[in-house]
């Protein structure tokens, strides 16, 4: 787990840095969630609304919404494919997204149409963490005081 500007940015994720979402292959499926940066920017998340399992999403389309007080934001999916499962736990306990964004706070499990192609547009490994650091520094984002 890399600490970048106070944010946890693990090297084993594939990041869509501009959108602050991550993807991670698990077997034939791709897990999708928000980054630590996103949950930090959002503040205390009180509602998670996810597209239903069975929906087909194009890359970049909304996989759901998050609400924290008066703010509401979308969850752009970094991978095209069919939603196989949504995390029921975060719907009943939205704070899991704040507390464990890379673990229990995952959001969608997607059966990808073409992961190899989508992965090319994402950043991962040491280079991914470096690119994320540049983004955070550029935008003046810091996760924790």
């Amino acid at each position: 787990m890399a600490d970048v500007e106070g944010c946890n940015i693990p090297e084993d994720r594939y990041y869509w840095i501009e959108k602050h979402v991550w993807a991670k292959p698990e077997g034939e499926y791709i897990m999708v969630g928000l980054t630590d940066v996103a949950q930090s920017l959002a503040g205390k998340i009180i509602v998670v609304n996810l597209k239903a399992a069975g929906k087909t999403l194009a890359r970049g389309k909304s996989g759901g919404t998050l609400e924290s007080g008066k703010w509401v934001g979308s969850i752009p999916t970094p991978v095209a494919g069919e939603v196989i499962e949504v995390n029921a736990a975060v719907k009943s306990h939205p704070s899991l997204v704040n507390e464990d964004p890379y673990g229990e706070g995952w959001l969608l499990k997607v059966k990808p149409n073409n992961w190899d192609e989508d992965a090319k547009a994402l950043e991962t490994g040491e280079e991914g963490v470096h690119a994320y650091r540049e983004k955070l520094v550029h935008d003046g984002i810091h996760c924790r005081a």
Partner: protein
Amino acid sequence: MSSDIKKYLYILTTGPEIAYRAASPFFLATTAALMDHDVSMVFTIRATGLLKRGVAEELTVKEGGDGARLQFFIDQARDAGVKFFVCAPSLDLNDCTLDDLIETEGVVGGSAVNEMALEADVVISF
């Protein structure tokens, strides 16, 4: 249009005279737009007053609350792609012209609003 994309129409009638009613329609419209739906808001009767330049910046949604202004909710809705339409006769009712309002998609007459409602999958009025 994909069958997954629904048309949402929000019709607003309450204006700045009841501030605490102002934000929720914009919030709901925003959530629908962020789910990639096609979302329009129609402002009629006193609601047109919410769009007058300078009003939203000053309108505090909850007296004694966190100080949130209506402008925050309007910006959030616009960023999400929500479309704003103004009922033409309401301009006179609110003593203004289109030039007095923030940017919208334009004015609509009574027939157009009825057609929009007819074509929408969901109509919600406030």
